[in-house]
């Protein structure tokens, strides 16, 4: 009975917790295509407000998974080499003028890149 009551009241508590977009997670997966990068050096980063919240190396086949904590603001995926083109499952992404960043608009927290082609 006590156990039952605890679970009941506990679930009410949990029901009251609303999802909070200030407390988001960015999760990006995909594949980088390049002929000349060094996999031991090349890194992808998730950057928000000039803070690196996640970084990763590539797998041997060029695929990657990267995730980090973000708040409800724009963030970007930063590449160490210039990006020629990219293709993803979401719309509204744009390449920065220095071609090193893919800017990700508000409301997108999960992204899958079919390919990110580097100039190199």
């Amino acid at each position, binding site marked *: 009975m006590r*156990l039952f009551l*605890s679970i009941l009241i506990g679930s009410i508590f949990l029901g009251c*917790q*609303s999802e909070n977009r200030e407390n*988001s997670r960015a999760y990006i997966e995909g594949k980088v295509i390049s002929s000349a990068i060094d996999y031991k050096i090349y890194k992808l*980063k998730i950057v928000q407000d000039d803070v690196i*919240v996640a970084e990763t190396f590539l797998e041997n086949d060029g695929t990657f998974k990267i*995730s980090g*904590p973000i708040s409800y603001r724009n963030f970007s995926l930063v590449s160490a080499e210039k990006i020629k083109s990219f293709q993803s499952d979401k719309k509204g992404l744009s390449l920065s003028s220095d071609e090193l960043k893919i800017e990700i608009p508000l409301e997108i927290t999960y992204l899958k890149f079919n390919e990110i082609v580097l100039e190199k």
Partner: protein
Amino acid sequence: MKNLLLLFLLISTFVFSQKKKYKLDVVSNIEAKVIAMKPIGNNSLAKNLEPFYGFAFGGNLMTPINFGIGVDYSMLFSNVIFGKENIYGNIGSPKLTVIDLFLTHRENISDDFKVEEMAGFSYYSQSNLYLDQDKSKYKNSGMGFNLGGKILYILDPLGYQAVFIGGKVNFYYNNIYNENPEIQKYFGRSTFLSLNMGYRFNF
């Protein structure tokens, strides 16, 4: 005057006798313990972090009918598993602070041994350091409930001191958001199994 004296006598008798009659024989105790805790399941805390180790302080109030209430304040520390940093994020030194509030029930197995079971709510506060920022912390909090049990061994004939070992299951839910429900679940839920041992002082 006589009547007044009688009245005083009566009132004082009633008041004090009542007080004695309804006084609950509640005993209290405080305890300190060390904890090893492992998150389980397919979630970020289980897959990306090493087991947590830490310590806790707590206390219980126990009534003569062997039911009581208790509180535990635990601090647990872990590390990110090498090679999982890409998923966990550019944050480190995970620390989990847990406050458990619970109802507890005691069974007297013998004069020396007691068994206690508990069930209640938990509040969790998790903090990590941003690796890219000086002294800035990434924090989030969660809620859930807990179930546990412990075996106590009484050390002295008067029953003041005891040692115990125990186990606990904690269910953890937080409010991290991701538009993909699978990812949200991966970062937002967990189940913790923990073992603890410690010392209790009754008074």
